[in-house]
């Protein structure tokens, strides 16, 4: 089994050098989030209707954007896997799916916390809320499938098609629930908010983006190393017997 030789060489030297970088990276991106939030708090006046509750926007909206971005990575990784059949694309999709699941759950929880004092309800069957919740269960199904299939090649193939079909479903889900007419306001973005809030939102979104990228990269790296150990263990078992 010659193909296992090449990754082994790269791991023997790499981990030590990058090991500390991951912790430092984590501290840096989290500090950026704290800084962006401080900036948001200091620069934004209370909203006319919501008062200081507007500040929840600085965590809710960036979480939502980056959750969707992570889904795009899942879709891209799935398509690339089916096309190139290289394991790295599957591992990338899986890592992004884990991050997407966490960020989506956070988005929904934060929206709920915001919705209670402003709309008066924790939850309403509105298109955006409902489709986000369905997105979450689709991605949980994707991760469940991965955990139930042990054989890596089959797991990669299956989860890639499940990821792609799930992504195809998202616009239809949105359509179907939108037809109850929306209660949720259109998505907040720098162009629909007062200039006083725009920079706070932008900075927080960028900080969250960096956190998201760090998380996906770290989990991808872990997944790759896990695969390398698995392959090596397999080879050892084979070598021991033969």
């Amino acid at each position: 089994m010659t193909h296992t030789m090449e990754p082994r060489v790269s791991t023997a030297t790499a981990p030590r050098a990058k090991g500390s970088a991951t912790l430092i990276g984590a501290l840096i991106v989290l500090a950026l989030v704290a800084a962006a939030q401080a900036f948001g708090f200091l620069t934004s006046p209370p909203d006319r209707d919501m008062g200081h509750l507007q500040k929840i926007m600085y965590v809710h909206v960036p979480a939502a954007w980056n959750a969707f971005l992570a889904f795009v990575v899942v879709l891209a990784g799935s398509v690339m896997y089916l096309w190139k059949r290289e394991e790295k694309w599957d591992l990338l999709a899986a890592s992004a799916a884990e991050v997407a699941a966490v960020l989506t759950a956070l988005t929904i929880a934060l929206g709920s916390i915001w919705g209670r004092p402003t709309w008066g309800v924790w939850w309403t069957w509105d298109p955006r809320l409902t489709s986000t919740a369905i997105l979450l269960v689709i991605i949980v199904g994707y991760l469940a499938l991965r955990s139930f299939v042990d054989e890596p090649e089959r797991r990669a193939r299956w989860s890639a098609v499940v990821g792609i079909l799930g992504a195809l479903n998202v616009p239809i889900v949105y359509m179907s629930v939108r037809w109850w007419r929306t209660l949720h306001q259109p998505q907040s973005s720098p162009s629909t908010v007062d200039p006083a809030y725009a920079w706070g939102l932008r900075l927080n979104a960028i900080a969250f983006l960096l956190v998201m990228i760090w998380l996906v990269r770290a989990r991808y790296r872990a997944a790759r190393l896990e695969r390398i150990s698995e392959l090596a263990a397999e080879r050892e078992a084979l070598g021991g017997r033969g």
Partner: protein
Amino acid sequence: MTARLALSRVMAVAWKDLTTERRSKAGFNGVVFMAAITLLMFGFALGPDPAPIRTAAAGLLWLTVLLSGVLAFNRSYELEIEAGALDALLLYPGGRWPIFAGKLLANLAFVLLVEAITVPIAGVLYDLPLLTPLPGLVGVLFLGTVGFVTLGTYYAAMASRVRAREVLLPLLLFPMLVPLLVAAVGATKAVLAGDPMGYGSAWIRLLAAFDIVFLAATFMTFDYVIGE
């Protein structure tokens, strides 16, 4: 492979599945019984007052179809995997889509038969006027069932091969069926009420769109999920 050969292969797979099902009977009877008891339990859950049951009837009917139908899909692969017959089927030259199409047809016939029995039961239990809107109702049931069976047959190809298949199939399938459920319930409500708001046609078109998208997507990717 010519079109005629492909068609005959599709029919052969479908016929084989249905024959196995007919010989055993346990599967079909069990699913019908499950559907009937679900309808009954919904009735108990919503209390003796007929008004809330009638309001919710379309939703209860579709949930019953989904909950009982999902029991059928894993079966269509399980029997073959146990007997090793699927691997033999896969060895035939030519694409694998005829296998999928055949299984889809067999499952479609199966679920439609289940509905033919359970919908009248629902009509009696929930006091629904079924006869006047019958043509529209049949159309909506058919469109909804096509989408349901397409994704059910597809995901069962994966779920039936893993541990915990009874959990995994609904976990994968039900979130995908949300738009189908919304549109099917909307259309059924509209049809049963004589479509007072004029929403029926929009829901039916959404159902048809769902069917087309997922029929096409499953045929494009079926090679990846069957076999090996």
